[in-house]
């Protein structure tokens, strides 16, 4: 088992407009990206569970050319509205850090 934080080079979140949050996971090594993709661990259902939204509300796209996975889902509160906690959406990545990927690398 490997933790995502130990095998990905970038794990980040940001607004995609005021109503959506977009989360990216990038790899520098094409072989590791391909292996992670092959495990199928990263998918819309995982993001739905981690962010407590319906799977239908998650737009999940593997982007081979960038060795990246992207998931876009609704924000909890529109950016800057009453009760918002993260106007830029830049600190919503943490639930992904400890996702376990069934790979034995190195």
């Amino acid at each position, binding site marked *: 088992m490997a933790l995502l934080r130990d095998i990905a*080079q*970038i794990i980040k979140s*940001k*607004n*995609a*407009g*005021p*109503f*959506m949050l*977009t989360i*990216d996971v*990038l790899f*520098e090594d094409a072989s590791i990206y391909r292996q992670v993709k092959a495990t199928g661990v990263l998918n819309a259902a995982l993001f739905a569970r*981690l*962010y*407590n939204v319906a799977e239908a509300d998650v*737009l999940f*796209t593997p*982007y081979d*050319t*960038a*060795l*990246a996975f*992207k998931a*876009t889902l*609704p924000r*909890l*509160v*529109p*950016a*800057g*509205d*009453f*009760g*918002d*906690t*993260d*106007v*830029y959406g830049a*600190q*919503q990545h*943490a*639930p992904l850090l400890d996702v376990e990927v069934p790979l034995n690398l190195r």
Partner: protein
Amino acid sequence: MSAPLSYTMLSTSGILGYGFAEESLRAGMTRNPSIIGCDGGSTDPGPYYLGAGKAFCSRLSIKRDLRLMLQAAVAAGIPCIIGTSGGAGGEPHLQDTAALVREIAREEKLSFRMALIHAEVDRALLTRRVGEGRTRALAKQPALDAGTIERATRIVGMMGPEPIARALDQGAQVILAGRSSDPAQWAAPAMRAGMQPAPSWYAGKMLECGAEPTTPKEPDCLLVTIEGDHLYCEPPNPIRRCTPLSVANFSLHENSSPIHHVEPGGLLDTSDVLFEAVTDRVVRVSGMRWTPAETYTVKLEGVELAGYRAITICATRDPVLIAQVDAYLATHKAKVQAKAAAFGVPAETWRMAVRTIGRDAVMGERELFRGPAPHELGFVVEVLAETQDVANAVLAMARTSLLHADFEGRLCKEGNMAFPFSPSDIELGALYRFSVFHTVAPDDPYEMFPIEHEKV
């Protein structure tokens, strides 16, 4: 006029006012760019700045960046383009930026032709477009209606490259655009020079945030050179590099989809893009495609007033309180409701939100971590009401109550919270919320964006 073989553009920073190294600009200018520019804004800092008509960068930092850019552009005899001027690209934002440009020109004895491109919408025209069925909601928002348009404090349209290219055709050297699609200020001069649409739009995507596609990633300058159907990204500052990872990372920035980018007038498809290292600090990007849209659409952004807020910040170091914080906050809310009602402010006229720092202040209901209690907890208390006076009054009661309320096993009988500041209560002023997030199909790309020229 035949198209040049290559076309180089220099972006100074992620946002005008974020700053950049002066040496980067100098080094970048030795590469003879055809244009320099900077994006002036974003919706990212939230709805307040569009509503209040204010910039989210300081006048001092914007003036510093603008001065260096104007001097460089005039010395080289090339255009300088600012997108989304003043942060949100509304009329006050545009006028404040124009006033800064005139001030700098006076101080530095610079002279040039300037164009302002306005982006606030004509509400009567937009209401007519709603009636004609030419507006569409984005991000699952309700359909646009006349009431929403009327209630909005300010609505801007996001211009495409066409009005910017027209301002260049009409002889402007300095262009201040109101709200504009981030890549448009770059796609405009590139396509006008005869470059292909796909790499021109993609170049705009790379340039919109300055040196963000580089490592180390900090606000600074970026050079992009378009050649035929591909482009090259390179930071002028020798301490930075573009790598396939740094460029790929930025290609995902703030988009819902990594492969389909909807722009005014078409779709940039990046499914088959290739990122290749040319040297250890230059990346070649190729394989992008541009499909013109059947209908030209303009994105709209608008905000409405949702009340007034006051906040306070405090923290507790008391383990007895920390162990029962949920119950304490629930009791606290009930007490504030009763006390506010006693001075004539019923509970249904205000709202209170408490963020508990050290527990779930970042992710709110989405926080999954349920670890041991920390030794201290911080609180940001927010009160929203119809007037500032009521927000202040309820917040003051919430602050007092948080400091002095009793709880089971209480030892700290002089007060439950550490308040770092006097005054403890902060007026946040108006709360605006995004109310318009739609598209509209105009008659042509120019009708919503009047161009005004002046000699500076």
